[in-house]
């Protein structure tokens, strides 16, 4: 068995196992999905504001399209690994995973991807129906679709490894979850989940592209709406990739140092 073949088999086994677990949680996934519907509430609000004429260039249909795609992007990049790490480290549930000759990271990745596989069909239905109902038309060129796909993956990488790194702080403190809540609030605003970043003050818009936040929501959304040119897409890939890499490297570093402090509590 080649190393590549063995790794493929491991990945597949983890995914199959995670998928089987996730199908046991179908009902919960629907509830989580509904709990992520804040963008739809924002959509209703902005459509109301745009009733008497466009706001900052966005008409009612534009807001509908923007927030429906925001909803889609957020659903595709939902991450909860911090709760898993917090529990595993505090309660010693990490122990059985540490005994296996595979980094526990891969189990979490498999869980997240399997959950996406269960969630995706559930999410697409309301999004497509909503877009059709609002009369929003997406360009759906190769460029917009490919750009969107890659940017969503990049957004997932940033969110996943940012949460992974924050979760690993549990090796040092039990306040990691609190820190995550702060990050979450900031990123809700600065990622464009509550309002398109176009509508933000000029000063903020100047700084945002250097932060990871726009690449989590606004940039992928704009890509699918066909509002980004080739050069803008490339630039977005570069900055997003750099942030993704930073979080990957950071979380690996924290794992190496934190694991020494693991208490392995329990029985």
């Amino acid at each position: 068995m080649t190393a590549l073949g063995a790794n493929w088999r491991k990945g597949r086994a983890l995914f199959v196992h995670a998928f089987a677990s996730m199908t046991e949680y179908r009902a919960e996934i629907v509830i989580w999905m509904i709990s992520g519907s804040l963008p739809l509430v924002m959509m209703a609000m902005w459509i109301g504001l745009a009733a008497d004429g466009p706001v900052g260039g966005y008409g009612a249909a534009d807001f509908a399209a923007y927030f429906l795609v925001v909803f889609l992007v957020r659903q595709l990049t939902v991450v909860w690994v911090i709760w898993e790490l917090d529990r595993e480290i505090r309660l010693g549930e990490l122990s059985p995973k540490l005994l296996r000759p595979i980094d526990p990271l891969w189990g979490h990745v498999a869980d997240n991807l399997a959950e996406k596989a269960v969630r995706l069909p559930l999410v697409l239905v309301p999004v497509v129906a909503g877009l059709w109902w609002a009369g929003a038309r997406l360009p759906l060129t190769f460029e917009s679709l490919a750009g969107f796909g890659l940017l969503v993956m990049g957004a997932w990488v940033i969110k996943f490894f940012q949460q992974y790194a924050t979760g690993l702080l549990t090796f040092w403190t039990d306040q990691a979850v609190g820190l995550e809540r702060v990050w979450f609030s900031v990123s809700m605003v600065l990622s464009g989940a509550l309002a398109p970043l176009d509508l933000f003050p000029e000063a903020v818009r100047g700084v945002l592209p250097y932060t990871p936040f726009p690449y989590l929501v606004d940039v992928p959304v704009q890509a699918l709406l066909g509002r980004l040119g080739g050069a803008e897409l490339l630039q977005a890939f570069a900055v997003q990739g750099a942030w993704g890499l930073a979080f990957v490297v950071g979380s690996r570093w924290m794992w190496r140092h934190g694991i020494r402090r693991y208490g392995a509590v329990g029985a």
Partner: protein
Amino acid sequence: MRWRPRASLGDVIRVDGLRKVYRVHEKEAGLRGSIRAFVDRRYRDVVAVDDVTFGVAPGEVVGFLGPNGAGKTTTLKVLSGLLHPSGGTVRVAGFEPRRREGAFLRGITLVMGQKQQLSWDLAAVDSFLVNQAVYEIPDAVYRERLGELTEMLSLDGLLRKQVRKLSLGERMKCELAAALLHRPDVLFLDEPTIGLDVTMQQQVRRFVADYNARHGATVVLTSHYMADVTALARRILVIDHGRLVFDGDLSALVEARAPEKRLRLSLSERVDRADLAALGRVHAAEGLEIELGVPRADVARVAAAALARLPVVDVAIEDVPVEDIVADLFAQGRAARAADAVRAAHEAGAAAGGRG
């Protein structure tokens, strides 16, 4: 007390001066305690394992005994790489466990008597298949091993049931199977029979003995059920308050700690207590059932004397139960520590008195 030589070169497990200190965060109870802990965190060091040295030869089965909190589980967690030692060196099959290298992890297993690696929402086989891939076990080998484990542990009908619907004992057997699919050479078993009924305990014991015999695996096990230890391990390590207080053959422990044998007599009528005391130490005398403690060397003579002088209906000569010996060992440790504490308090008091 007879000590084995320190770790020798051929040993698969070598532990030298192992020390593990936990840093625990002290918090007083109640809201005030919480608030105080928030502004001023206090830590205390708990020495769980202190300067422990031993070696285990390949294929050996070693029983780890000690009262609650002695440091047994901590030692096993260090040996399996879950905990980084605070001091000393540890080698298992030539590896430093804390590095958790793939080749090391593929050669060991740790079973603890609680919720472990099986996913509760799925059937045990679903988790087995993950292990098959993770440990890179070829299909044919996997099928053969699963067959063997199914037979040895009577797993028929359990593997396809949702794990959360299994009974404690059934789950424990599935956990054991999951932990051994990769056929490790070194087994760390932490109270593998806890909570199981007598039949299931025997089955697990027999399984461990079989596994050891078939595959020549090295086994280190802890248990509070003395039967686990006496049935499986010829050699025992006794740990108390983090320190190794005995390392040697079980029989040597019995001889060293129990120079007596028990002479059990059933009498047909009551006799004078003085007549009994003349024969040996009266351990118990309930009605007509008498238990005497007699030095090993004198057993035959005393038994003969008893038969000659007393109205004996039945006689039996037994070893002191291992439980009693070990309990005695722990009690001695406690007494010694208590004496130390009293002496220390005394000295502190004297010093304070001298100053005042």
